[in-house]
């Protein structure tokens, strides 16, 4: 599938046609009686940047958490690069994925969290080489070199020997982005990555993500409250309401001329507040 590219995002690599990188097929998630996601269908093309917006409790974050296998799904199938994530083929039947299958598919996906979740007992550099060395089996020297490049990219090479407790929120989040990139994921998930930050450091984190979007071929799914930013870098924006995608489209259309009543209400509420 192809998605029309908004003018604002013209610098980003265009999404590639063909097999979707991520596909949600009738995915349902319930907590007890509460339906968080209701038969969600969503395709994300390779290199596509999709922003997910919507009121709290609309299931936005759950989408990312299910894709990262932090939440189990109750129904439906998620495909990553054509393969089912939560299930596997065994003797012609689809069965629940085992640890090995999960780890193989998870290697495609990276995630950046709202609260950074850096490992406090490791330095910035240590955080960035931990998984490459111990999961990918990369030689330490190579991992260090690559981590240094990534930390330089996020503007923190001079802080690489500091522990997270010595870094500001914005700096921690930039380390977290470098740490996720060190695993070379095909898909990178951003879960409200600026929500826990002081207003004056939000910009430095958004700049890093903007650079990523324009200079790297990476599929990105982003749950965000930064409407201006979503408009600027996304190829597509999805508005979630009560566990469903109420409306989706190129940012210019969704923000400029929303069709759905809920979308209009939400946008006018957040844009007034902002």
């Amino acid at each position, binding site marked *: 599938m192809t998605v029309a590219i908004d003018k604002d995002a013209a610098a980003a690599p265009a999404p590639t046609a063909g097999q979707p990188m991520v596909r949600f097929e009738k995915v349902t998630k319930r907590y007890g009686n509460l339906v968080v996601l209701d038969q969600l269908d969503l395709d994300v093309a390779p290199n596509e940047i999709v922003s997910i917006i919507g009121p709290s409790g609309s299931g936005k974050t759950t989408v990312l958490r299910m894709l*990262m*296998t*932090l939440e189990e799904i109750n129904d439906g199938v998620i495909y990553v690069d054509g393969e089912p994530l939560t299930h596997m083929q065994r003797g012609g039947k689809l069965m629940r994925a085992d*640890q090995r299958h999960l*780890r193989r598919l*998870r*290697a495609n*996906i*990276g*995630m950046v*969290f709202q*609260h950074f*979740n*850096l*490992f*406090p*007992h490791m*330095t910035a550099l240590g955080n960035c080489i*931990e*998984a490459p060395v*111990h*999961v990918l089996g990369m030689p330490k020297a190579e991992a260090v070199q690559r981590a240094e490049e990534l930390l330089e990219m996020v503007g923190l090479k001079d802080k690489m020997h*500091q*522990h*997270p*407790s*010595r870094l500001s929120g914005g700096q921690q989040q930039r380390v977290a982005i470098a*740490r*996720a990139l060190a*695993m070379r994921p095909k898909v990178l998930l951003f879960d409200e990555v600026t929500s826990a930050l002081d207003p004056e450091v939000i910009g430095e984190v958004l700049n890093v993500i903007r650079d990523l979007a324009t200079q790297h071929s990476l599929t990105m799914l982003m749950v965000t409250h930064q409407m201006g930013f979503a408009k600027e870098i996304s190829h597509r924006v999805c508005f979630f309401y009560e566990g469903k995608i109420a409306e989706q489209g190129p940012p210019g259309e969704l923000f400029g001329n929303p069709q759905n009543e809920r979308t209009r209400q939400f946008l006018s509420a957040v844009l007034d507040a902002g």
Partner: protein
Amino acid sequence: MSYLEFLEEFGARYLDGSLITLIQAVCSSILAIAIAATMGLMRLSHLWGVRAIATCYVEFFRGTSLLVQLYWIYYVLPLFGVPLDNFTAGILGVGMNLGAYGAELVRGGIQSVPRGQYEAAIALNMSPIGRMRRVIMPQAILNMLPPWGTLLIELLKGTALVSLISVADLMFEAKQINGSTYLSAQAFGTALVIYYIMARLIITPLMRWSETLLSRRMGRA
């Protein structure tokens, strides 16, 4: 008999007893830590059976008296064909008992690590063992050090009970000296002071040192 004369006469025996108490404490600490780590992790298993075994262990050893457990190990196990000398029985009894308390500290320490740390480790595709060993445990250990200090002092004092299965520890010597001299105040008073010194001058500084060391590795100190 002045207290100095008392010490001159019995000092050597107090030293011998203290040495035995220290050996008992060190050996049963090692055992307790090993049991605590195993049972604490088993308590967190997602397999029902594994959890049940650990829960039974903890309930049994915390719920019954250490002294009775020592008697069981020393007097009853030989009847089932497991003869143990009193020294080994003492280490086993104290170690297994305090290990049950320690298991709860391990469980609590692991659970005190924020959920986001597990999630970050999953997002980095770490294996379940890697997550525990590289991410959760280092943080959990720092969180559980203060209660472990208390537990190890408890363990040291608990070793006094091994005198009742005739291990010639500090308490055993104190009782013997009391029995032959009837100088109860001196005999037991000296033992009290020695227990206090061991707890205050060995265990407490050791724990504080470990805490500083680990905090520094977290970049906190």
